[in-house]
């Protein structure tokens, strides 16, 4: 019994020790110890490097200087000691005498007061005066004495300093050079003390975020995350990646870690903290899925630095019209009409054969189309096409017929049309052949699809046929529209060419009316209406909303007959495979109506990332990142630009093509009212450009959005503009006019009418428009240095600033005293009232005359032109 008791007691003791051991050996403590060791090692390395750097010539010099100074001092030790003694005595005496002086001075001040008092009281004060004089005398004597003693003191001090100061200076030098090493040595001592086997102060580091309802203990192990110098340290000690962009703007004290990364913040073991355990529904997010959290706070923008994938996904969601079927609470697309064209007058546009091929599988007809492929049973495609082909519009034919009658069909029209298509930069939106963008439908085989009458009508006025189209009106003449139509109608391939003239085809077997009726029913029930508007048909399909998709429990998802190796059992994988191939989870009882979009992998991943942001457990309102007025204006502007594909021709915010002018700085440049009217009703400003600004048919909201966007980009006030109103004087205007003529602006700039017969490539914008179009401050800045505002511009600097000074051309030196700023202002003021040239423009100067022998008409003689004999 006692033996048993003894043994059990020993076991209890051992078990208790084991308990202590497990407490010492906590996982997080291991990490903290590791981190401290890492810091100590690094400091050691830094110290070694500093020491290495230290053994350089400077240090040798300083050390030598010190040695020398010390030796000299030692050699002259007697002198030094004497000097010290002397200095002590001299200081002593000086301070005493100086004190005496101060006493005398204060007595003098008192005496002066008494004298003044006497005089002010009306008495003569002879006695006081005498005292004052006496004291003055005493004071000056004492001052002399003190001055003399001070000199002696200084000499004595200098004598000592003579030996001491080189020593001190050398020591200071060494100290300065060794400062780094000293600092690092101290740091090393500290870090090593912290890295002992039994260190003090290992503790859980947590951020208690009450607003967010989270407690994050991640930095207990990830200790180096908020220290910028540790990028190359091994995980988990490394500095947070993209430190400046991400961590500096989202400090962990305010946001914690799990609000972005997920995971189980208050766990203290690695496995549990990373959240990939049973029962924790917010595991650590990997790679691009971290971006899903960005949207919880930055929900008002569609472009965010550091979150490209999720923003692309959101864009795809809007672009492909997913929102037409799947509602998401709080999601509003920029334009609320459906993403596909209105299905009206299709019978007049194309043939039933083409429609059948298209509806059956759109991507075989146009590889980059957004229209998905539905799964059809037998005969459904024919029925739908029959119905659509029965929709006619008889207003489409006449325009084309008239143009055809007038112009006929000449072979030169094809080349002309092709050239015009190139000039107008249709490829900026449409793909024709190998080149072009996929923003708008591909036109490579448009001749197979569309009747020429329809193309002509469309080119002349797109909004008449499709009120919500993004295709703008290029203000084409009849001839231009006709040649383009001829060219496009010639773009044919094989395939569905046959049947374009036939009109509505007979479907095999079923009579036409039943087919059409069936087609109408199918359109209602298949889901076409989510993207297309069809007159007279209402959608009859129930589609699940996607709000809270990311919160779905794995048990709420049906995986069909797929195996876990094919489709891992996670919400992410379910959604991914569903987007990729919606029918993949079909079973005997479950059939998905969703069509297949045939997206490529990167698009699927982007869309998946966006969909995984749809959660009901967002972060609270208080942590959202509110947008300023300016940011909101920029955001709206970017959306409009993206929606209408402005960058097909313009460069905006540095992105785009250079077919049309770069719009950087537009907000600073043009007046807002002018821009408003211009966007509503564009005119040709630069006739020498091939491209022309088309009329997009913007509504007021879009135009104001764009004007505000450009203003916001440049920090200009919106909507109330204020200009520095020029108030020129007569002389000022006269000076401006003189300079204007001197600088020969009209050599390139147009004044009112574009001159006939001159090659247009040389011309510059119309100066009569300056007062309507440009902001006065901008004109001044432009005149001063055009290259700064628009690098590479053809406009020269008329007041070159070279190597530190302005160069005013000699004839202009007298105008306004040669002051460059006044001259620029004068020219600007003149331009603001410039109405064009009333009379004949001043004749340009006579051609230069070659001076005869001996005649000196100019400073430098004009040389004979030299030709090569060719």
């Amino acid at each position: 019994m006692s033996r048993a008791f003894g043994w059990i007691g020993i076991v209890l003791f051992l078990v208790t020790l084991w308990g202590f051991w497990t407490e010492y050996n906590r996982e997080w403590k291991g990490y903290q110890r590791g981190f401290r060791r890492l810091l100590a090692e690094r400091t050691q390395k830094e110290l070694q490097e500093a020491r290495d750097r230290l053994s350089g010539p400077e240090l040798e010099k300083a050390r030598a200087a010190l040695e020398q100074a010390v030796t000299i001092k030692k050699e002259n030790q007697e002198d030094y000691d004497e000097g010290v003694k002397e200095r002590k005595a001299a200081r002593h005496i000086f301070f005493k005498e100086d004190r005496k002086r101060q006493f005398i001075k204060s007595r003098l001040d008192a005496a002066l007061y008494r004298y003044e008092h006497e005089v002010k009281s009306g008495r003569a004060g002879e006695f006081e005066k005498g005292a004052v004089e006496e004291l003055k005398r005493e004071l000056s004597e004492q001052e002399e004495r003190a001055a003399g003693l001070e000199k002696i003191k200084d000499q004595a001090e200098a004598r000592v300093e003579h030996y001491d100061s080189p020593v001190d200076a050398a020591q200071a030098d060494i100290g300065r050079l060794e400062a780094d090493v000293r600092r690092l040595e101290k740091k090393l001592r500290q870090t090593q003390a912290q890295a002992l086997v039994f260190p003090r102060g290992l503790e859980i580091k947590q951020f208690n975020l009450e607003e967010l309802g989270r407690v994050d203990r991640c930095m207990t192990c990830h200790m180096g995350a908020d220290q910028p110098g540790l990028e190359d340290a091994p995980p988990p000690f490394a500095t947070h990646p993209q430190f400046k962009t991400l961590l500096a703007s989202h400090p962990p004290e305010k946001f914690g870690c799990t609000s972005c990364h997920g995971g189980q913040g208050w766990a203290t073991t690695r496995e549990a903290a990373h959240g990939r355990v049973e029962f924790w529904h917010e595991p650590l997010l990997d790679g691009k899925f971290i971006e899903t959290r960005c949207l919880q706070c930055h929900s008002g923008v569609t472009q965010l630095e550091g979150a490209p994938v999720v923003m692309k996904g959101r864009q795809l969601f809007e672009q492909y019209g997913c929102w037409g079927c799947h509602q998401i609470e709080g999601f509003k697309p920029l334009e609320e009409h459906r993403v596909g064209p209105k299905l009206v007058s299709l019978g007049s546009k194309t043939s039933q054969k083409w429609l059948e091929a298209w509806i059956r599988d759109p991507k075989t007809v146009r590889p980059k189309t957004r229209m998905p492929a539905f799964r059809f049973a037998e005969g459904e495609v024919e029925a739908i096409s029959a119905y659509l082909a029965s929709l006619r519009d008889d207003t489409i034919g006449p325009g084309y017929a008239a143009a055809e009658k007038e112009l006929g069909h000449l072979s030169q029209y094809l080349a002309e049309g092709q050239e015009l298509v190139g000039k107008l930069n249709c490829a900026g939106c449409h793909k024709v052949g190998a080149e072009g963008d996929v923003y708008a439908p591909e036109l490579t085989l448009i001749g197979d699809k569309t009747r020429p009458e329809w193309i002509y009508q469309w080119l002349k006025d797109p909004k008449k046929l499709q009120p919500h189209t993004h295709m703008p009106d290029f203000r084409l003449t009849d001839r231009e529209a006709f040649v383009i139509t001829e060219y496009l109608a010639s773009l044919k391939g094989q395939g569905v060419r046959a049947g374009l003239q036939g009109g509505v085809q007979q479907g095999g077997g079923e009579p036409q009316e039943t087919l059409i009726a069936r087609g109408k029913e199918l359109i209602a029930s298949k889901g076409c209406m989510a993207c297309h508007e069809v007159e007279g048909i209402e959608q009859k399909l129930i589609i699940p909303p996607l709000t809270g998709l990311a919160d779905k429990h794995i048990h709420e998802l049906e995986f069909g007959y797929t195996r876990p190796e094919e489709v891992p059992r996670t919400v992410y994988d379910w959604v991914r495979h569903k987007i990729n191939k919606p029918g993949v989870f079909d079973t005997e009882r479950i059939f998905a109506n969703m069509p297949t979009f045939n997206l490529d992998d990167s698009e699927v991943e982007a869309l998946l990332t966006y969909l995984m942001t749809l959660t009901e457990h967002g972060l609270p309102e208080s942590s959202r990142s509110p947008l300023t007025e300016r940011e909101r204006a920029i955001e709206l502007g970017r959306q409009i630009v993206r929606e209408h594909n402005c960058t097909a021709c313009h460069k905006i915010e540095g992105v785009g093509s250079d077919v049309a002018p770069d719009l950087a700085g537009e907000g600073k440049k043009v007046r807002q009212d002018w821009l408003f009217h211009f966007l509503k009703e564009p005119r040709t400003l630069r006739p020498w450009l091939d491209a022309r600004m088309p009329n997009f048919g913007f509504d007021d909201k879009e135009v104001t959005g764009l004007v505000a966007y450009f203003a916001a980009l440049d920090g200009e006030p919106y909507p109330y503009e204020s200009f520095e109103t020029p108030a020129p004087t007569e002389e000022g205007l006269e000076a401006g006019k003189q300079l204007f003529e001197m600088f020969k602006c009209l050599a390139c700039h147009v004044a009112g009418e574009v001159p006939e017969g001159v090659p247009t490539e040389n011309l510059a914008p119309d100066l009569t428009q300056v007062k309507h179009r440009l902001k006065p401050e901008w004109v001044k800045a432009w005149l001063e240095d055009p290259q700064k505002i628009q690098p590479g511009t053809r406009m020269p600097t008329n007041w070159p600033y070279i190597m530190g000074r302005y160069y005013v051309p000699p004839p202009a030196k007298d105008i306004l005293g040669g002051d460059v700023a006044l001259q620029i202002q004068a020219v600007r003021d003149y331009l603001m009232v410039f109405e064009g040239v009333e009379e004949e423009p001043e004749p340009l100067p006579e051609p230069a005359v070659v001076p005869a022998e001996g005649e000196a008409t100019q400073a430098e003689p004009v040389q004979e032109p030299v030709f090569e004999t060719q």
Partner: protein
Amino acid sequence: MRTHFAWMVTPFVLMAAVGCSEAKEVKSTETAVVAQATETPSAAPAAPAAAGHVTGKIMFSGTQPTLKKLDMAADPVCQGLHAGAVHSETVLVNANGTLKNVFVYVKKGLEGKTFPAASEKVKFDQHTCMYDPHVMGVRVGQPIEIVNSDTTLHNVHAMAKVNPEFNYGMPFEGMALPAQFDKPEIMVKVKCDVHPWMNAYIGVVEHPHFAVTGDDGSFDLGELAPGEYVIEAWHEYYAAQTQTITVPAAGEVVFTFAHTEGGA
């Protein structure tokens, strides 16, 4: 994979080594590797130059290609300054079968050497609505004086990529403006925005060993210290050619250009 690549590259390396080692041969190393249609005729060394002093000439094989006529209708002043038709100056073949306006300079071999600063002012003139000289070489920091000798408005738009770009308006006759380039650049294209046919080229180098061929198609690069150098001949239309020479060299350095469509 790696060994495969090495085997592919070796023959070229051998060829290049053979090409480089013979200074006399006129075959240009670069044109041997890049498949272009330039001819590579045999060498024809002239009288041997002095050891250390590098001279040469630029030959042109073939006849002068016909040049475009310049249309000066946009500015009657310019039109009035020329009696007959004016042609572009893109390719100018001299009477002795050499090529004019070729900028020749030492591309490699002078690294680390310092040269005395260039203080001599170089003139860049605009007269009869053409730039003079059409091709010019200057040193880094060398002062350039841009002059407008015409009565009409010109502007000098230097479209430099390495140096800061500038565009100065010169509306008056006799106006002069200073300019200088602080970084080496081959070549800075200069154009006039008022008269689109006007263009010129300026080459900026750090050292004084450069030249522009004139009417006789020869160039003189001055005295070079013994060693190996790479010389480049740049033409505005044809692809540039390089040669590696060793100093002291026996013989002239000769480049040959031939006309191809597109200048390749």
